[in-house]
């Protein structure tokens, strides 16, 4: 992910977004045309289904700063998502990784291209994710009649299935670049670095589905099990496929045991 966005560098982030906006919008269109042939409407489902076709590995990792990655091995690229993070993060990370998987020239050319500004590259991935997730969040925000700023933001999180900061960045961009909405801008800056630490309870209080802000702890190893099963069937006289299958099951059990500790 990109450098940590805080209230201090929020304005710079918006400046950076301006530079890449046209490019990213072109990519989001390209994505929809190329990868959403079945017309999937849930953005959360769409990103995961596309990643799964690319052997997505989902594992819970006890690290709140590690959302996911694309692991490259030779010409193979495998997306990984940390399912110990709340689902809203996973959805965002999924889109972030889709950018890397399909549009990141750094990854596409295999050799590491040092000419690319790594920070800007990560910003592009985040911006791509935001543009895939959000509709008109500014209008939606103002359509809510809640008194409380945080409650409204949480409702935005709920409908767009987006992380707290992502909602604020998107709102901030609209407020600054489109509507010159100084009041909203102030509110965002005031709350940006103080994400509520009891989001689950806040969701419950607002009668929203709190699963969204909890981890899913899904363990899925990229369809490997099925793949090995099929090669075992095709090659009954090769013993190493069976060994690999056993090894995979051992790994999976180990991970699941670890999850029990995490989920408590």
């Amino acid at each position, binding site marked *: 992910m990109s450098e940590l966005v805080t209230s201090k560098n929020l304005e710079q982030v918006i400046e950076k977004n301006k530079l890449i906006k046209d490019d990213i919008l072109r990519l989001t269109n390209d994505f929809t045309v190329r990868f959403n042939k079945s017309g999937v409407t849930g953005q959360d489902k769409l990103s995961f289904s596309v990643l799964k076709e690319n052997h997505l590995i989902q594992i819970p990792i006890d690290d709140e700063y590690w959302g996911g990655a694309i692991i490259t091995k030779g010409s193979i690229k495998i997306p990984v998502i940390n399912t110990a993070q709340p689902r809203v993060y996973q959805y965002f990370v999924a889109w972030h990784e889709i950018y890397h998987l399909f549009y990141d020239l750094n990854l596409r050319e295999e050799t590491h291209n040092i000419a690319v500004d790594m920070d800007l590259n990560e910003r592009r991935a985040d911006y791509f994710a935001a543009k895939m997730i959000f509709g008109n969040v500014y209008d939606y925000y103002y359509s809510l009649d809640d008194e409380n700023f945080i409650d409204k933001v949480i409702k935005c999180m709920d409908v767009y299935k987006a992380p707290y900061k992502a909602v604020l960045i998107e709102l901030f961009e609209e407020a600054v670049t489109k509507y010159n909405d100084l009041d909203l801008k102030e509110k965002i800056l005031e709350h940006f670095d103080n994400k509520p630490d009891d989001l689950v309870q806040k969701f419950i209080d607002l009668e929203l589905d709190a699963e969204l802000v909890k981890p899913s702890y899904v363990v899925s190893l990229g369809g490997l099990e099925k793949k090995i099963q099929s090669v075992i069937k095709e090659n009954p006289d*090769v013993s*190493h496929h069976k060994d690999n299958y056993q090894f995979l099951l051992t790994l999976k059990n180990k991970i699941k045991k670890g999850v029990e500790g995490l989920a408590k």
Partner: protein
Amino acid sequence: MKGEGIKELKKYLSIGKPLKVCILDNNSVEFLTWVRKNVSPEKIFSQYDMILIPKWVWVEVCDSDNRKSYINDLKHYSKVQIIDEVDYLTLVDYKEAELYYLFLYCCYNVSRLVSFIKKNILKNRPVEDLDPYEEWLNIFYEEGLDQRKLSNGRIQKKNAGEISIAVLSYILSYYYSGSIDTITIFSSDRDTYEFVSKAKEILYKDERFKDRSNTSITFKSNDFLIYEWTRLGYINEDNIDAFVDNYRQTRRIKFTRKKQDNSIEEQDKLIENTVFLEMLKDSTIHLIF
């Protein structure tokens, strides 16, 4: 074989005479003991300058007196040497890092072993900081390879033979390509074939090895041998049905077939004995494994 013996072998491998080398796997030795009355060892082995058996394979051979005495008799037809894996280091001129990669690549089909090697042998260090070869080889053999107890009480190490054969064949291929003409592995074990094939795939891409000259490594599986023997007239037509019936089971064969326009078709499929007998009469076929 240790110390002096390996130096002699090294000298022999370096004289520059184009040698034909054969490496034996345990399952092939077993098969050859069955068919000994029909096809003498002399017919099979006198064309090779040298027959090599890695020690990890030799341990398996020695579970059967038949197999052991078969090998001992081979000394009449060719130079037979059992090579201790510890001596692989001498054969590669003490290039420990390269030897490490040969082992790693020859294990590449078995994820558990790759994981073991990286975790317990490389231990996140640069390859230059590896423990001495003899030490890590011992850890790999004792702790890395799965084991099971045989009825005779011996502990069998899973995949030890296949890995040792694969590493040895690549040592010969890459370090003695100037004096070795052919390297032929006698094995019917699909794992051995796949370990060698996988390692080849990686070695061809690896910077350390890809531009070096090397001798190709080929196989003679049991089915290949039967096909060859019928060609050479070692098994006559009247006996072939009974021979195949007695000594062969349904097995997957990799082969090519020449079509009418001389183009070549690749196949890899399960072949029953009846179909195999038909294949034996077909001279457009080449068995690969």
